């Protein structure tokens, strides 16, 4: 299946990545060759195979619903590029 420049641009938007025009050209060509390579998987008959999402037998891991230690607000915010009081600052969302 061929991946077009338009598809790459759209997927980049979904992934919230701004691409420059030259990046878009280069990436489209590279992704096309990677997907062509990946397409060899189509040779295999897999309709009766179960998918593996977890390699080891792991069940839901639960714990008691009790309060534990958590990060202080100050520590939580210490890496924020912009903050005000107890909040992360983002560009205005509601006009």
């Amino acid at each position, binding site marked *: *299946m061929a*991946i077009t420049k338009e598809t790459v641009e759209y997927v980049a938007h979904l992934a919230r*990545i*701004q691409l420059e025009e030259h990046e878009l050209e280069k*990436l489209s060509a590279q992704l096309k060759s*990677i997907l062509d390579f990946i397409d060899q998987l189509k040779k295999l008959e*897999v309709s009766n195979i179960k998918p593996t999402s*977890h390699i080891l037998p792991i069940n839901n891991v639960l714990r008691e619903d009790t309060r534990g230690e958590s990060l202080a607000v100050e520590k939580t915010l210490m890496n924020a590029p*912009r903050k005000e009081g107890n909040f992360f600052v983002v560009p205005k969302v509601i006009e």
Partner: protein
Amino acid sequence: MELYKLTGHELLKKLSSKEITSEDISLALKKRIKETDPRVKAYVRTDKSGTEAKRIEARDNSALKGIPVSIKDNICTDGLNTECSSRILTGFKPPYDATVIKKLKVSGASILDLKTNMDEFAFGSSTENSFFGPTRNPWNLECVPGGSSGGSAAAVASDEAIMALGSDTGGSIRQPASFCGVVGLKPTYGRVSRYGLIAFASSLDQIGPITKDTEDSALLMNIISGHDPFDSTSACVDVPDYTKSLGMDIKGLKIAIPKEYFVEGLDPQVKSSIEEAINELKKLGAEIKEVSLPHSEYAVPVYYIIATAEASSNLARFDGVQYGFRAEDSRSKDESKLISMYKDTRGQGFGQEAKRRIILGTFVLSHGYYDAYYLRALKVRTLIKEDFDAVFKEFDCIVTPTAPTAAFKIGEKIEDPLRMYLSDIYTISANLSGIPAISVPCGFTKNDLPVGLQILAKPFGEETLFRVAHTYEQNTPWHKRRPTL
């Protein structure tokens, strides 16, 4: 006596007999890094850091007695910059220690104040994808050290580290260990807690040791292994004393050689080193037999679907809000200001390989392609796992080359991602199957570049790995050679 040249276990003896102090080691290492790292560039942000091993008051009875351990830039160290060698995490100081760091500190390790270089977010096989520039191979400064844990491997190989931690998602510990002539272990999935490891592909990632020999590897595994309530995928399986596997012989051990690993693409010099190593194992009493892992050829394509899919999800958190870099003046004006901020931050903050993988991962998970790519890859992953299960019913371990070639030249593969991806062709299956694998030095090419031997065992079979690796190591000279710097 140049203390930086010694292994951890050799230093422990000297510390026990009070011949030296941990401060002596830190000073020696500091001097070594200052002298050789401007050429090797194993560490990052060296201009901003004091090159001090953060010394803790090491108790005499602690396991590591103050020995410094070097840490890859994607493992969180409380208050100490951890940036995944990426622009997008510029300035990030974790507010907590990863579980492995906590365990090391409790065991008396000094955590080196410098972090080791890596491919950005562990995306790569050469350490060229680092925002800080490439690390160089200590055996030949024109060559890559492998990746993504290239900084850790190069630091250990150049005696700029006593021992180090790396992370391995598709070979990122073993392949650089092979390229640099040191020992690298990827533990069983779930053996070591991933809490505080900045996630690349959560179903594949494991932290593991990169060391000068197998004894140090076992020492570190004793410390970092075990269940952690903060990582729900860590296993509730008892941790044996791995050092007890050292010094056992391998008489009668059944070793499988998968024929699919010895085909086109394997460098003839690497091949002959591996064949010699297999002969050596035979001489040491192991029973060797050829087997088939029929789905081996599908490992790389499966990996580049699963790993990128998981990465695209894991890296969604880097959005310029909670930490790291933010693009302040949005240039893309067609959306809301918030979306423009996200897009510009990620467009400017991620390097080329990260963008390539996030976009590929988003694509294979997107509506209309999920079944054709992602679901199909999960199914082929089952087939690859079943290949290994079948072999381990009859054999104790599998032996292969770690990488198809020795270290390649800086710049040689960087423009061709597909060729770069193929340098992990022998290591990826262990991550897809969750099994442990170790790389040990097994020879050199004509150009004096190290070759690595990979040993794989069934889940939680690390003891078998140590048994085979240590026996081989004790009967061969390779691990004793060091590069001239």
